[in-house]
């Protein structure tokens, strides 16, 4: 009897140890994806490329990047992120590609070189708001994006308004737009696009547009487009565009089983592009209303089309007795310039129309020189 008890106790200890070991080896969730990043550059339409010098072109040198990311929620529900930089060094001391791996966990961020030697180690701050214990609910939904797109438009609008943002739903685009002085958020419920744009007192700063896709029951990332503003010589602004393609996306559960197993078979490497510079139109905050300038005017007037009407719109100019004196239309334009020099002096209403949406503004035509 004693021997049996001993045997039972021994086996129990072994089984418990194995289970504990097994459990300890399995994080609660692992999200793994590989991305390929490309970079494009643009200067404003108004700038002549001849104004750039060779050092400016150097600002546009870029190397495409392949990064493998593993987001691991460990058994304590703390996130660990392992980023592996897949670009091989071109030569022995290629410092641009010196880092092979970056591992951030609840204690530190450690960088390794391609020989797995530690390059640097930085402790994680105790009050780090990101490297913190997640709730069970957060763990459950981590890596999936269904909840952002399955709410009804009115619920989303309500949520944004509770956040103190001005918000509208545009049914023709299936898009909710929310904004305040600094940030603009756009959620396209049809195409699963989530965009954030930030503005400072100097104007546009950066934007992050995430494109998602349906994969089985889950909504997962497909692509990301990031725009960053910078300046060249003589304060010429330029935009660096980073296009990140998700080449795969895997989510495994606590038992190591795949919940999502996505491979992007459509993506093909872009041909060698060199430096390409494209023009861009000024990135302004989206506006729900039509704006005109200058006002009063004697000859030309610039009309800023409300963003929600920019795909196709009709412009009508009415005089003070509501007679249509001018009309035109446009496609995919954010601004339009109209010559009103032949108009009689007086008050006019400029109306912009797209389907059932309309927006209008008053214009004063004054042939005499402005007193200013």
């Amino acid at each position, binding site marked *: 009897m004693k021997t049996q008890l001993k045997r039972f106790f021994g086996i129990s200890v072994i089984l418990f140890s194995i289970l504990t070991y097994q459990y300890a080896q399995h994080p609660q969730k692992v999200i793994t994806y590989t991305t390929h990043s490309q970079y494009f550059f643009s200067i404003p339409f108004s700038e002549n490329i001849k104004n750039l010098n060779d*050092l400016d072109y150097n600002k546009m040198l870029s190397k495409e990047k392949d990064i493998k990311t593993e987001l691991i929620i460990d058994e304590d529900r703390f996130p660990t992120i392992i980023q592996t930089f897949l670009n091989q060094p071109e030569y022995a001391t290629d*410092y641009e590609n010196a880092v092979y791996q970056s591992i*951030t966990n609840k204690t530190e961020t450690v960088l390794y070189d391609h020989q797995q030697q530690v390059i640097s180690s930085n402790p994680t701050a105790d009050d780090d708001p990101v490297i913190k214990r997640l709730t069970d609910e957060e763990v459950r939904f981590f890596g999936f994006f269904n909840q952002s797109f399955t709410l009804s438009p009115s619920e989303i609008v309500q949520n944004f308004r509770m956040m103190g943002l001005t918000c509208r739903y545009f049914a023709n685009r299936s898009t909710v737009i929310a904004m305040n002085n600094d940030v603009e958020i756009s959620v396209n419920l049809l195409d699963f696009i989530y965009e954030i744009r930030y503005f400072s007192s100097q104007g546009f700063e950066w934007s992050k547009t995430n494109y998602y896709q349906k994969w089985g029951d889950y909504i997962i990332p497909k692509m990301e487009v990031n725009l960053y503003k910078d300046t060249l010589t003589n304060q010429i602004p330029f935009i660096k565009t980073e296009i990140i393609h998700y080449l795969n996306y895997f989510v495994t559960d606590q038992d190591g089983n795949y919940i999502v197993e996505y491979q992007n078979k459509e993506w093909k490497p872009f041909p060698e592009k060199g430096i390409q510079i494209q023009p861009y139109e000024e990135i302004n905050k989206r506006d729900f209303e039509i704006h005109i300038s200058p006002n009063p005017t004697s000859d030309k007037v610039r009309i800023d089309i409300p963003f929600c009407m920019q795909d196709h719109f009709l412009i009508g100019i009415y005089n003070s007795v509501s007679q249509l004196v001018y009309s035109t239309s446009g496609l995919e334009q954010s601004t339009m310039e109209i010559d009103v020099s032949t108009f009689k002096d007086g008050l006019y209403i400029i109306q912009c129309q797209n389907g059932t949406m309309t927006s209008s503004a008053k214009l004063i035509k004054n042939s005499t020189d402005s007193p200013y």
Partner: protein
Amino acid sequence: MKKIVLLIIYMISLWVHAQIDTSLVKHIVKVDDHPSQFISPSLLSAIETPQFNDSTFRRIYFIHGLGGDASSWQQASDACWDQTLNISGFFARNVEISRPEYIYSTLTTLNSAAYDVRQQIRNQSFIDYYQNNMNPNAAIMIGHSQGGLIIRSLVHMDLQPNANIPALGKGYGGFITVASPLQGAQIINNRSQIEQMAHDACNCLLKGPETSNIAIHTILKIMGKDQVNDNVCNLIASNILPLFFSQYYDNITNDYKVGASAIQQFNNDVNFTSYQTMPKLAIYGIEPRENILWRTANWLIKNPNSAPPFGANDDWEFFNTTIYPTYMSYVSNVCIYRSRVEILAGSQYILFPFLTPGMHLATLFLMNDYINKMRAWQTGVDWFNRANANWETIIGARQYVVNQTTYYYCRKCTIGQSWFISPTLQPCLDCNCREVRAIPTQTVTYTLAANDGIVIAESASNLPGATHCPLRISCSDVSGYDGSSHMQIRNDSYLERSFHNLFEGEYGMFFKLKRK
């Protein structure tokens, strides 16, 4: 009476020399017109009338470059005569060396510097002839960088009809340029870009630290951040940096800008027969492109003569001890913030709408904060990443060509991806895209030229009328050869090998020097 004796001695000496080279007779009268070109008559009294003897000893004049002095060639020149240095594989020769300096001011030109050097050579040649029993016209001039151009200017001067060549001759027989911008130096044309690069560096490298240091950030914000940054960077770029690079603005450098008229005049010397037959060649080095700025800077900051003779070989010290650790501190910060952005990106959307709206907004602003910090540090990383390209651009080793092309923005596609950008129209049609927008695009390509970190090889090797091919040892010729940068070449193993081969006679008998 004493004066008459001296005059007789002097005339005899001229006559003796005239017997040697009759082509110089016509200059004798002119020499009398310019007695200052010779040493003082009082010294003559101490000199016995020399008999020309084809001594095995030769003189080498080592002429320094921009910002240098007599010590610029110290180690290499000493190695040429001092057998006590016991340099393995390199033999001291039967030579005397001189390291002439030239009067240096912001007004100095190549011509005026060449005139200074010529006077010193003529004085020395007189001493060599009368006192040292050497053939002054067998002397070799070796000039580094600008020093090579001063030699060309000197030679050009002596080729002119009014050159006043002394009876003893020019005082040299041939010359060697080392890393000289024989067809001009683009760095001089682009010197204002050095300030631009510095201003850019200042701006880019300040951004990361200032965003992550709350105290600095707050102070700068109160003071008007952009204004402070700009003022600090202007001070560095416009006031401090030019102190270090002030020599690049000296008048003398205008004479060797690419396209300078002086260079063209030197090139035309090939029309003189006496120039054609004068032994001469160009030695130049090539620095591999890898971290070229930092490796060149290594021996700009550190005097190559601080190394043992021909020992200025390792050019990685500055990079390894200063640049790489700094770069990695920027990279570390980028990685720290990138990891947080990735975690937020993976969580923020799922948190919406589970978190209270206030927290969602807080998460968004946290993300903005991290992205701004990541960008700020990345700006520094980007600067490091393009620093070598910037330097190549400034020295003319990287040149851009812009071509106009068209790209197509294909939208609302029903096959495959909903939108994409294509360099041709066909994929838009194949994918049944309902909207296609042509985007005018400037495609910028570049060419790269081999260089030594300051001067491109094409310029440093192109010595018109050179009697020998330009001398360069490629990486494959020497085991472990790690390139030879502009400053390093004055005292590295590459120069050792070049001098050895030269003095052994591999590049003509004129340059062959007897071992001690």
